[in-house]
């Protein structure tokens, strides 16, 4: 690492996120090895994600943070060549890669918000009601109630309450992403995975989503992958830094950004590479 340049100031850690002591982990990742065909993408990752907190995965492109995120709800099953090489992931003590586990049930408990907002080409109302119907909720009044609750939960209700039956594709980028969050929380998952949820949004929309994440963590365990270190610093309680498929350091966010114990972490958070 070059020492000729002055170190840029580490991003400020928001006081709101500051001193949250780690709660007992709800998701435990143990000695996980993961492969795409012959190429190993994750090496011996061990990590406990605390309940009702925000855990951020950071690291340069291709470091395996998104791969790990998608392991948590087995979205990697959709990739033909993807396979677990060793280790396990337990949610509430149950190994989710156990053959007896119903992947459909797992995904109901572990919701996901994607990098690019992907509302269904249906109305705003139907976007949210879709997941509810999958779970067997058919009654109109019940659906209305949960749709409203979810939209309020995603801080979108006031903006769309008059046009619930317009297409979800007609919303702005930030609104679409909050609609996707509303869709995810409607089915009351335990964990919400967010894969760079703000990377396609402008700063104002980003601020709204971040604020929302803050509110959501009182009720959900949130895992967020982000490229944006300021964002990680602002929203997360715990931060895990990955590099080349390995977990380099995992600690409270404040510690990672102010006082990292690993020199690689330090040079990444201070912007020397990545």
């Amino acid at each position, binding site marked *: 690492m070059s020492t000729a340049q002055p170190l840029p100031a580490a991003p400020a850690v928001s006081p709101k996120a500051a001193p949250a002591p780690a709660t007992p982990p709800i998701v435990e990742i143990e000695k996980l090895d993961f492969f795409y065909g012959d190429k190993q993408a994750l090496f011996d990752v061990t990590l406990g994600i605390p309940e009702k907190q925000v855990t951020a995965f950071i690291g340069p492109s291709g470091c395996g943070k998104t791969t790990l995120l998608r392991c948590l709800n087995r979205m990697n099953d959709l990739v033909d060549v993807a396979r677990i090489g060793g280790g396990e992931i337990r949610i509430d003590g149950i190994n989710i890669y156990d053959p007896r586990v119903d992947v459909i049930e*797992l*995904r109901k408990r572990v919701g996901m918000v994607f990098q690019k907002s*992907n509302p269904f*080409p249906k109305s705003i109302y139907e976007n949210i009601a879709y997941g509810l119907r*999958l779970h067997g909720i058919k009654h109109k009044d019940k659906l209305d109630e949960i749709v409203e609750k979810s939209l309020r939960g995603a801080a979108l209700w006031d903006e769309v309450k008059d046009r619930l039956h317009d297409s979800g594709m007609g919303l702005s980028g930030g609104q679409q992403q909050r609609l996707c969050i509303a869709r995810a929380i409607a089915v009351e998952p335990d964990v919400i995975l967010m894969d760079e949820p703000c990377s396609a949004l402008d700063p104002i929309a980003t601020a709204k989503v971040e604020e929302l994440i803050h509110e959501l963590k009182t009720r959900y365990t949130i895992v967020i992958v982000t490229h944006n270190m300021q964002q990680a610093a602002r929203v997360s309680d715990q931060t895990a830094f990955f590099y080349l498929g390995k977990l380099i350091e995992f600690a409270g966010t404040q510690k990672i950004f102010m006082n990292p114990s690993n020199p690689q972490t330090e040079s990444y958070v201070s912007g020397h590479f990545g």
Partner: protein
Amino acid sequence: MANDSSPEPIAVSHSVRKQLLAPGKFRLFGKNRDWWIKQFFEGNAALSIVVLLLIVFTLFREAAGFMPGNRHNLEVYRRAGLEYVDILKRETDAVAALGRELSATRLAWFEALRAEGLSSEDANERLAALDEIDTRLADASGPLRDIVSEMTDHASGVKERAKVAEDMREVRANLLAGIGGSDSERVASLKAQAEAVEIETIDYPTEVVALTGRLPEIQAANRSLSAELGAIVAALPTASEAAVAKRLQRFARELEEFRAGLPRAEGELVRWRADEPIGFFESFNAFLFGRTWVTASFWQDWYGVLPLFFGSFFISVLALAIAIPLGVCAALYVNQVARPAEQRFIKPYIEFISAIPSVVLGFFGIAMLGETLRLVSQVPWLSWVPGFPMQERLNAFTAAALLALMAIPTIFTLAEDALQNVPKALREASLALGATRMQTIVKIILPAALSGITAAILLGFGRVIGETMVVLLCAGNRIAVPDFSAGLGVAFQPVHTMTGIVAQEMGEVVRGSLHYRALFMVGSLLFLLSLAVNYGAQKIVRRYRLPQT
């Protein structure tokens, strides 16, 4: 040089400089190579458009002459009294149909008696009363038949003379058209020849009087027919066998209906006027809604496209009913479920079907499919299937099954494209919410791809309705509107198609004749139909395209 103090030119290697700056040496008529290349591509595009315009123009120009031609055809039909005779003919035809019905009833009764154990002599004896009625029925319409026969001869004679007169007029016109040039001797000879051509002027009103003048005679014949039929109904024997009794009752009912209809037919005859003009739209309607297509007939030619249109449409709908589930389901499987190895196998395989020449499919249809279907239809325990056992080996269903095979690649490929265009993110979003693969396909993927799939189906329809060879070989080619009273069994009736009739008759038709123009009309109709289908498909795709983000 404007500026001497300009800096040294940048040193560029000689060859690069040559490529960049040298104007091409090629020159043709003062134009460089780029210009000619541009012209070449432009010319190709222009040529395609010009050819298309020419085709459209020819099609409609040839078809345009049909309307006045057919109007004239119908005019002669009326003025020469053929129409009048046809009204009467319908009466005698109806009596003949009643006679056939009676014979069929007799046969059924005879078999019933035999089944009861009577010898054929005894059975015939029992049926003697019925046989007598049969004879009486045939005799009853005798006078009317004689009248019709004489009137037919007269009317067709008049029509024949009209046709000869028309031909002669044409001969004279041709001779006169040949006049020209300076050879005075030749001109004089042609003129003399032209004048020597005898053209008969046919006085239609007096000719028709020979027909309408017989009205009292017809009315008398009708009266005696009606009386005789009444007597027949009264004399109809009763059968103890339930089925036969039922048939006899129906026969009696039909006889009475016919009797009741006689005054109406008579009224038609009384009201008929030979000089009633034929409107332009009557000629058009006779084409579009006419139920008969009869050509080169000694009596009267009819160019009604309805049975052909029905045939084409019916076969296409049947074919799509087979092809849509197969094509769309195959596309869904390949796009959503299949492993890459399966995809690599299935896709080219289905697309290969479109490489089979349609004539090959056609004789496969005749030799294999038609034959097999007929054998299958004769299996006794399958007789519950509507339309089984099949009357004809070649029918709408045979052709539709093969056309479906031809439509599947079109529908499959386009539907697969439509599914491919559904963003993968939607699928992931649905799965991440805990949907199963089937739920995702049915509730998310299929609705999102629906416009594309609809377009695929429409284009499949266009492909099927324009197909010629298979329908010509396998559809059975009977020119009649399918009898939908047969229920689902209607699928096993032979039909003829618009494409088939053009292919079949175009080779033998006299250029410029009314028949020739009628075929062009059929072609134009087909053209407009495919145009509408393709336009609709494009509109749908554009209207419902997903926003590409």
